[in-house]
């Protein structure tokens, strides 16, 4: 079943025609209305007329994180200020946030894309959608909220945290669908277990949309197991409307990226050249339908790859692989590039340990991975624990090419955030 069958199954040639038409329109608009892009075009000696095919996309200038900050608050607007309808900011960790404006049409489009995604995973009118993302300036909750309403769900704007209340809401209102971060989902699974709530028996949960942080297949399985539901991966970023950019269908084999709204490129972050088909690189997106704040070739810093093979669901939009890392999360230890997700993958595949972990960088260039011991991994002997630590250190070395110190800690010992988890603490004296 589809939300917007015409667009979701558009044959590729028609889709590409539509993309070109929308790209040309976007380029004309930003050139006419956004001084920032005018300058960039002039510097490149480029006019909107030069964009004659989709291949000409590569002639367009990039937009970066820094550009968004430099144009804070309203420098990138392509509509008059009084025609904007909603402001979001992106969760920047340092300095000024990035301001993202939505027009009425943008608010509607963002909700449309979420509605497509929800229907694609089997959500229907009548489902009860408990939204545990942070409401407020962050796009995560509001955009999906509107999408779920569009589908006809009862939406519970719970926000994150306060797990006791979350479970109460689930019980009292029969929540069938939840939307949350992977770290909170893992926390919630532990919470249910600890409080003797058997989700398959006591709750009516069917589906979870898990996103906002990258996570692994192993984590998906742990969440599915612990919460008794199907987990669908999603990808979005505030700069591109927030959630709903790309979403898994019922096949759970990669996330369809809505190509009638976004033009996708996967580039080698070093050379800015497109990577060969199917290979990993930085995801670069151009908005095709955004009215208030169109962005050309926005560098997401997310590392992923495109799946070009047709999907069994019939959607013609290509799929994104699970995000394998944020270019910005990457840490460098002894000259080796490491993504925290690589470490997570190893930990989640190891029986006998819990779901929470912390990567500490200390001293000159040392890494300690702290991970919680689970009861299944405890046989009462110190020697077994030492062996488990050694085994994990070896497995990590095979994955990240540096041997960290692994330290087992009791459950509840690591800082738990009920929203986005902080996984890396850098205390190096470099």
């Amino acid at each position, binding site marked *: 079943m589809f939300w917007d069958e015409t667009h979701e199954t558009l044959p590729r040639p028609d889709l590409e025609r539509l993309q070109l038409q929308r790209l040309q329109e976007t380029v004309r608009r930003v050139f006419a209305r956004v001084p920032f892009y005018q300058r960039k075009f002039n510097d490149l000696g480029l006019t909107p007329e030069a964009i004659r095919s989709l291949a000409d996309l590569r002639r367009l200038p990039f937009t970066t994180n820094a550009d968004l900050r430099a144009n804070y608050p309203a420098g990138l607007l392509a509509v008059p200020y009084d025609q904007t309808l909603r402001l979001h900011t992106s969760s920047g960790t340092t300095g000024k946030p990035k301001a993202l404006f939505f027009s009425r049409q943008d608010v509607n489009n963002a909700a449309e894309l979420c509605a497509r995604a929800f229907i694609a995973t089997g959500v229907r009118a009548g489902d009860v959608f408990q939204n545990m993302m942070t409401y407020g300036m962050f796009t995560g909750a509001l955009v999906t909220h509107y999408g779920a309403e569009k589908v006809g769900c009862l939406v519970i704007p719970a926000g994150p945290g306060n797990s006791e209340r979350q479970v109460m809401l689930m019980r009292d209102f029969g929540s069938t669908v939840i939307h949350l971060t992977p770290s909170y989902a893992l926390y919630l699974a532990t919470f249910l277990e600890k409080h003797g709530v058997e989700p398959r028996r006591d709750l009516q949960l069917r589906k979870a949309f898990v996103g906002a942080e990258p996570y692994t297949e192993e984590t998906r399985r742990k969440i599915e197991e612990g919460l008794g539901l199907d987990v669908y991966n999603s990808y979005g970023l505030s700069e591109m409307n927030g959630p709903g950019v790309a979403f898994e269908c019922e096949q759970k084999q990669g996330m369809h990226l809505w190509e009638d709204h976004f033009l996708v490129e996967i580039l080698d972050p070093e050379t800015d050249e497109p990577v060969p088909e199917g290979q990993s690189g930085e995801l670069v997106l151009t908005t095709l339908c955004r009215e208030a704040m169109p962005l050309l070739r926005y560098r997401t810093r997310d590392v992923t790859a495109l799946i070009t093979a047709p999907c069994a669901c019939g959607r013609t939009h290509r799929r994104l692989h699970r995000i394998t890392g944020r270019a910005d999360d990457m840490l460098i230890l002894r000259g080796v590039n490491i993504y925290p997700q690589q470490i997570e993958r190893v930990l989640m595949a190891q029986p006998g340990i819990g779901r929470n972990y912390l990567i500490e960088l200390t001293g000159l260039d040392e890494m300690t991975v702290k991970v919680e011991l689970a009861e299944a991994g*405890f*046989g009462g002997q110190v020697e077994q*624990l030492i062996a488990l630590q050694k085994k994990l250190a070896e497995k990590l070395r095979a994955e990240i090419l540096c041997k960290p110190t692994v330290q087992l800690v009791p*459950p509840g010992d690591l800082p738990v955030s009920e929203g986005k988890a902080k996984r890396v603490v850098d205390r190096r004296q470099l």
Partner: protein
Amino acid sequence: MNAVKLVAVFAENKPGQTARVTRILAHANLNIRWVTIASVGAFGVMKFLVDNAQLAYEALKHEGYVTTLLEVLAVEVSDQPGALHAVAECLAFHQINLENTSGFVANQRAILVLEVSDLARAREILQQQNLRVLTREEMLTL
């Protein structure tokens, strides 16, 4: 025969940890008959012999501790030099791995607590040597 059970707890090697664990046991009205603590680096494992191991396990688990129950052999030996050696040698001869050993003396009776790889066989062998293997009830009424 009711095997003697210890409750083992995983804990950080930090000041106050032992006190926290023993407080939980006290709150559950459990009597600690005997304890051993092994720590390595940042963590340690405490093992307790209490009058109700299952209850201790549940109380600690409820407080969020990683804990498990261990079946051990409690053997009464003569309170004289060489007693442990004789037991260890006898088990080694039958290729039974001795994972942990500790001992104590109560009311002039010397008791060895043995954690072994094959509990049933070890018991048989020790009994053949005319050593007294204590039941749970005997152990708690020493």
